[in-house]
């Protein structure tokens, strides 16, 4: 696959994920609020990873930089979902 085709497909996937998370955002009911939030945050961090790996070219970067980036995505996802689940009024 050419680099142009790859990034264009990533863009299509990013738009599809945006539309998907929009639907989850609209549909999330009160009882499933936490599940909805986890899915939305998960989709957002997946999009962040796609932008980093394919647009910023982190996929071809030295392993240390790639590890920092992947670590960021994972830590932010875990922290945001944990805050959503455990922080109560």
């Amino acid at each position, binding site marked *: 696959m050419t680099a142009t085709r790859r990034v264009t497909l990533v863009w299509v996937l990013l*738009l599809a994920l945006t539309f998907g998370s929009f639907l989850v955002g609209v549909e999330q009911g009160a009882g499933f609020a936490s599940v909805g939030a986890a899915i939305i945050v998960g989709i957002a961090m997946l999009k962040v990873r796609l932008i980093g790996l394919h*647009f910023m070219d982190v996929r071809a970067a030295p392993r240390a930089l790639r590890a920092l980036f992947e670590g960021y995505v994972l830590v932010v996802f875990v922290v945001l979902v944990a805050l959503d689940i455990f922080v109560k009024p």
Partner: protein
Amino acid sequence: MTLLRRSGAPGTSADPGRKVPGEEGIWVFVLGDMTVFALFFATFMYSRGKNHAVFARDHAELHVSLGTVNTVLLLSSSLLVVLAVQRVLGGRHAGAWQLIAGALCCGAGFVVVKAVEWTQLFAARKGVGSGEFFSYYFMFTGIHLMHVLIGLAVLSRLIVVIRRAEFTDKQARLCETGGIFWHMVDLLWVVLFALFYLVR
């Protein structure tokens, strides 16, 4: 950064065939900025957990469609920038400036949509002082908007650089670096969009 530099040089035994995209320094800035925003995201989620009812009520005042349009604009501008950078790095910089100009238009569109959105909110008497949700909303999206404006200046500069008759490897690297900054602006918005517009 020492770690990055040690393993970052192309062809080193530590990481053969791999190189740091753009200037190394941009990554210190980008990862630093992303960390600051991560703290913003966490602060927002903590406050949302503590005042869930108020956040859910104020969240309903935002137009998800406007946030979605802005997301599509930034994602599309990022695609145009990465296509331009690919051309530049491949030694085919001739058509690249038009792609950057397209990205610039998408970025300007983002600013216009944000201006429309804020005008509507101000008309509905929503501002920085209208409760915790809107304080976070205006502060974080405001700081992000500053990044967008800086990004637009960077893209404008890249157009000038690419259109020069003389084009060297150094200038190609400058384009790659500018592109990384613009992608960061896109990436931060993706999370802001999810937290403010989508999570109830």
